[in-house]
């Protein structure tokens, strides 16, 4: 018996409804959308390069098996339907039969099998396809993924930018591990997505044009997409305001966000970041010094006023985050916070054996990796002074310098920003898994180790039942919020900016890491 079967008809109806619900008017065809990338693109091949910058062009050039609606429900894309076996060990994808690559070659299950192999070997997120042992291709339009254990995270991992289907006849000409340095990752890129590559000029722009043989009839609506590379946020802000840019995502400076909100022609929204799930936190090294004591970590949480961070530092652009999972995720369970209580904080510190001596209980260091979070770090220093903890702020010259300190756990506290990347298995587990301690930046750099947390994550990773999975993650979040390997403070205030001319901007769970085949220009 099949547990989850989606009929083609039902799926089409769903896609149609979700394409039109946000606007009453008929989408217009044609036009050139001018949009922007906030940093230079390293690689356009999203099967081997992750990250938000590659995600935008990558999702236009390459199609993935699934896409997601606003309610976190999977929708057909390259796979018109799919089926998970009862034991959760086989996932069958029934591919659309009219998908073609930009060079005219039909897309087949061979390409799916090849792409899985390439992603497994090169993609930075190993956990996405680690349980996939092999891919069978019984016919040209059926791909069967054989798993070593049930792997519910696979569904989100087959959507957005995470599972780009790349053509075997182009990228399969060398060793599998060589695909990440393939010459056609940056020029003559061939995918099956709604847009094909016209030109990529390093540091200048990525230009895409409509792929006329795109497998969804009548789409995309736009003729051309120009992604300009503008790294200075102030310059981008002016370009939105004077109309040079139609749309842009990942704007994160509170001052600029609030200024753009006041411009009549612009809409500024925090929607579209649930799956990428960026959250800020105060990381604490649980393996050495006073911070090894959970009471000290709690005392710090009680002394740091989140309200100040939200209102003064983030100027109302960021939301509260309490648990390691992004608040927009269906798995998120809000945890009771640590409302400022300096007396409680002091009492906890006394109890932990750190009384005030010569005006100070202890000295700690705090690191940060990029200038944007310096105010948070300075604030923590000031806040902890109130409970007689001396904090020394350690600036890093650049990202690698900070990454080195984090990766080798040479720190007491640090400000950090980490992304969820869809399912918790992909972007959340890495921070708390005791087998992932000190394995480079954004691993378990806190040295946190809790057998129950490990067990909960292991169970949730293979739990096919949604409700049971949610319950497991609920307990997981509760423990994390109680033991505080990191103190979760806020979501990263990513915002998407678009002007009145843009119809149906990409504001789904994957934001700009999805095809913009339904986006159009009103004039």
């Amino acid at each position, binding site marked *: 018996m099949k547990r989850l079967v989606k009929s083609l008809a039902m799926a089409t109806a769903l896609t149609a409804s979700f394409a039109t619900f946000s606007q009453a008017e008929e989408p217009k065809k044609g036009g*050139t959308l*001018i949009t922007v990338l906030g*940093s*230079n693109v*390293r*690689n356009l091949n999203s099967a081997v*390069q*992750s*990250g*938000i*910058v*590659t995600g935008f062009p990558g999702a236009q050039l390459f199609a993935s098996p699934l896409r997601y609606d606003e309610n976190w429900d999977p929708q057909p894309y390259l796979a018109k339907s799919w089926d998970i076996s009862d034991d959760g060990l086989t996932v069958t994808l029934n591919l659309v039969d009219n998908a073609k690559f930009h060079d005219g070659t039909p897309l087949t299950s061979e390409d799916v099998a090849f792409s899985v192999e390439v992603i497994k070997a*090169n*993609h*930075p*997120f*190993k956990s996405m396809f680690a349980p996939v042992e092999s891919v069978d291709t019984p016919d040209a339009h059926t791909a069967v993924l054989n798993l070593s254990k049930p792997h519910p995270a696979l569904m989100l991992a087959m959507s957005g930018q995470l599972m780009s289907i790349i053509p075997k006849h182009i990228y399969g000409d060398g060793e599998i*591990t060589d695909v990440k*340095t393939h010459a056609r*990752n*940056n020029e003559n890129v061939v995918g099956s997505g709604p847009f094909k590559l016209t030109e990529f*000029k*390093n*540091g*200048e*722009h990525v*230009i895409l044009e409509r792929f006329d043989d795109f497998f969804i009839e009548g789409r995309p609506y736009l003729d*051309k997409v*120009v992604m*300009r590379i*503008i*790294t*200075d946020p*102030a*310059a*981008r802000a*002016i*370009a939105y*305001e*004077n109309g*040079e840019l139609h749309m842009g995502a990942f704007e994160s400076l509170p001052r600029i966000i609030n200024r753009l909100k006041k411009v009549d022609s612009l809409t500024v929204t925090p929607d579209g970041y649930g799956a990428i799930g960026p959250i800020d936190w105060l990381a604490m090294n649980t393996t050495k010094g006073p911070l090894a004591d959970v009471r000290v970590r709690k005392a710090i949480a009680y002394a740091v006023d989140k309200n100040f961070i939200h209102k003064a530092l983030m100027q109302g652009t960021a939301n509260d985050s309490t648990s390691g999972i992004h608040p927009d995720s269906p798995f998120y369970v809000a945890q009771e916070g640590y409302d400022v209580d300096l007396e409680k904080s002091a009492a906890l510190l006394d109890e932990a054996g750190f009384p005030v001596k010569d005006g100070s209980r202890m000295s700690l260091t705090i690191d940060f990796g990029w200038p944007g979070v310096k105010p948070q770090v300075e604030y923590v220093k000031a806040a902890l002074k109130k409970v007689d903890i001396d904090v020394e702020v350690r600036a890093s*010259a*650049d*990202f*690698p*310098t*900070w*990454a*080195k*300190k984090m*990766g080798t756990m040479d720190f007491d506290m640090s400000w950090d920003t*980490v*992304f969820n*990347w869809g399912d918790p298995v992909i*972007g959340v587990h*890495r921070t708390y898994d005791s087998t992932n301690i000190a394995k*480079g*930046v*954004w*691993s378990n750099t806190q040295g946190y180790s809790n057998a129950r947390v490990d067990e909960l994550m292991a169970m949730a990773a293979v739990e096919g039942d949604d409700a049971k999975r949610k319950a497991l993650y609920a307990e997981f979040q509760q423990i994390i919020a109680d033991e505080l390997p990191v103190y979760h403070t806020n979501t990263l205030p990513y915002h998407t900016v678009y002007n009145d001319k843009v119809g149906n901007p990409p504001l789904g769970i994957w934001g700009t890491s999805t095809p913009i085949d339904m986006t159009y220009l009103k004039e």
Partner: protein
Amino acid sequence: MAILQTFLMRAVYAVILLMAVLVLNFSMMHLAPGDVADTISQSMGGADQEILDQIRADYGLDQPFIVQLGRYMGNVLRFDLGYSFFYNTPVTELILQRLPATLLLVFTAQILALLIGVLLGVISARKPNGIMSHFVTILALFGYSAPVFWTGILLLIGFSLKIQIFPVAGMQDVTIDGGFWVHLVDIARHLVLPVITLGSIFLALYSRLARATMMEVLGSDYVRTAKAKGLTEREVVYKHALKNSLSPVITLAGLQFSAVISGAVLVEAVFSWPGLGTLAFQSIIARDTPTILGILFFSALVVIVGNLLTDLALRLVDPRVRGKG
């Protein structure tokens, strides 16, 4: 023959200098904590340890320092600057792609600043206490002390937002269709604000220097003689005095040309100018050793060529230098 010998010696020094630049910078890059695998991991939103190790192995970063250095220098001696770790593109291609934009920006700014600066300097030197002179002093003070990114953003707010006549960023508008002239005008429009921003620093330098040397020259004996001969003020200033006051300005301009890349970094960043400056900056942040070394190699070349050109120019305007071979 003497000249030829001088230039030959120069060429030998140049090669030694280039090698020294590379070895020194390679070592310094190696001393910095973290490596390109970290920044690749950053661009990807984190990476599994296994993948990081694989990247390090692919780029030979797991080898001892001396092996890495030997390999790199070996390649350079074969005129191969290697592949960028970060962009997976040949470094030479990457640099040549970016070089024209930077040269266009820097040369336009330099030449305009030189012409206008010398003119302003001369005008103000003739009436050291006049309004024009005070204006030049203030302009120089402003140009010299105002941070480039501040001037840039201010110009953007003024002329891209309040009065929308110039584009915000980039070097050209890719949505424009048209022939050569249309594109030329388009690039010129994009060039205006960055050139003003970058030029304001140079302008400050040149106008101050031109003013000072001109004032000195105007007080010298031969100028008095020329005046006594009955030459007009104009002839005295622009024929006799100017030529003699130019040497220090040219020397300074030569030195400034060597700052082609360093000077343009901030301006390029503010205006998203697709030049070498931004590439250099990003490569340093990304620990992309081959790209940085490639850029340094090119800039060292520019410095050497720039110095040679300065020498030649000085020979043209100052016969005293010619005699020294």
